[in-house]
Each structure stands twice: as structure tokens, then as C-alpha cells.
């Protein structure tokens, strides 16, 4: 079984490890795409969000309260988002356990839409992170490996 992606180490902090997802055949991982998205970079919540991520991996750990579910699409609490402020800037992730966070992509929920499903970009990113989660869990179940074997 081919996962179709690799887990790329981003940071090993004092409290948690941060990974991202790099799809086969692509040059960059999903978090890199997020960090190089001009709309994301220009958003006022971008810097607070980066600080929040740093706080998580270096100081506080992956406390559940900092991760928010994305409505009905995700029935697994591990699939969630990190945001800041009113949640216009969203970064999707998999909080695999207390020590491992897998960052996906994200984007900006513009003020003229009410639901994230109305944004093709966010919908795409949300579904991608959910798909990664399911592929990973299926893969681990089938192979008998653990997540640590993939890191």
C-alpha cells in the first residue's frame, strides 16, 4: 500500500514534534505552501498564529483546548484546525497524540462567507487533511506499524 505522501519533520520542540505532509511528486510540503501563500502572509492573524504554534511545541504542549474541530466534516477529534482571533485564518492539522502534530494546509475564510464550506480553498484543504488522516490510520491498521515507524 502506498500512502501517496511522506511525513516531513518541521520541528522537534521541547513539548511536541511538528510534521507536515508532502505528497509524492510535489516539491514542497503542505505547511510550506501555507507559509508561502500571499493571502495568508498578509493576514493580520498570521504572526499570532505562528507564535501560537511555537508556544505549543516549545512551551505548552498540544493541549486539546487549542485545537478546534471543523464542524461536521470530521468525526475524528484528531482532525482539527489551529486558528486565532475570530478564526478567519485557518491551519488544518492532525493532532495525532499529545506529542505529535501533523500540519496540513489552510487558508483565509473571507468575511463575505459564513461557512468554510463556501470557500473552495478551505474546503479542499479540509478534505485533504481528513483524507490524510484516514489514509494514515488505514495504513497503520493494515501494516501493523505505528506512527513512530513512519517518522
Amino acid at each position, binding site marked *: 500500500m502506498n500512502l501517496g505522501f511522506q511525513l516531513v519533520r518541521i520541528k522537534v520542540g521541547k513539548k511536541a514534534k511538528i510534521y507536515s505532509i508532502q505528497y509524492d511528486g510535489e516539491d514542497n*510540503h503542505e505547511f510550506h505552501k501555507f507559509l508561502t501563500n500571499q493571502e495568508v502572509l498578509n493576514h493580520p492573524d498570521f504572526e499570532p498564529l505562528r507564535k501560537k504554534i511555537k508556544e505549543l511545541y516549545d512551551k505548552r504542549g498540544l493541549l486539546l483546548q487549542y485545537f478546534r474541530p471543523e464542524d461536521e466534516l470530521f468525526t475524528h477529534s484528531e482532525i482539527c484546525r489551529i486558528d486565532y482571533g475570530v478564526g478567519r485564518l485557518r491551519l488544518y492539522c492532525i493532532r495525532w497524540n499529545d506529542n505529535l502534530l501533523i500540519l496540513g494546509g489552510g487558508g483565509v475564510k473571507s468575511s463575505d462567507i459564513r461557512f468554510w464550506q463556501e470557500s473552495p480553498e478551505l474546503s479542499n484543504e479540509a478534505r485533504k487533511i481528513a483524507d490524510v488522516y484516514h489514509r494514515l490510520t488505514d495504513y497503520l491498521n493494515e501494516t501493523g506499524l505505528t506512527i513512530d515507524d513512519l517518522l
Partner: protein
Amino acid sequence: MSREVDDYFDEIDTKIPEDVSRLVEKQMDIAEAIAGAIERSEFKTRKAFAAAIGMKESMLSRILAGNVNLTLKTITKIESALNTDIISVKTPKTKPDLEGLHQPDIESRPAKYSSGRLIVPSIAAEGKTEYSNDRKESSDEQ
């Protein structure tokens, strides 16, 4: 299976403005303090706590995620409901050192600095000793 690439965060860390950094830290500190206080309280769930203070559960969720720039009014409302302090304010130690206020031998005391201002001993009209600062106005203007 995994591939180690690079470390964006080391570069990123240096670019976060100090005020943003402090704001996020304090918001997260407060979020954790509230979460801990709710857990220790008589409220069984966060939902019950939100209802008790007339707050939407989604708002409480945002607060606990460290996403909200809370007003003092909201913080004190939460503190009252939980019967605990969420934040405390350090008493500034910038008052002039009044030790020896009534000591008569003030002339032997050296001039002092407090809060960056030169504080010099003098005698008040009633004969009590106090510290005054003749240069205050001029130094404030600078």
C-alpha cells in the same frame, strides 16, 4: 517513510514582533488558567459553565483556545463565577523609598533615584521629611 527537510520555525521566531508575542503568550496563559479553574470548579462541564455566565459555548471555546482579547469586564465575570483569580497585577515598586521619613538627620542622606528620576530629600513645611523632585517637570518634558 518520513523525510526531514528544513526548519522554518527558527527563522520565523526572530520575526515575530515583541508585542504580538507577548499578547499571544498572555492570551494562552489566561486560557489555561480559565480551563484549570473550570476543571477545579463545581461546574461539571464547560458547557455548564458557559451557560452559568450567559456565554455562548462557542465563545468559551474561542477563549480557551487563546483566541480572544478578553476585556477586564469579562475576566472579572469569569473570576466571580469561578470564585478565583485568573489574573493578578503586580504592585509596581516605583514609589519613592520613604524609609526614614521621620528621621531628623535627612541632610546626611544621599540623593536617591526612583523610577529614573532624581529624588532628593527635603523638609516639608510641617517639619516632616519627604522626598521631592524639583526636576520632575523638566525631566518629564524630555
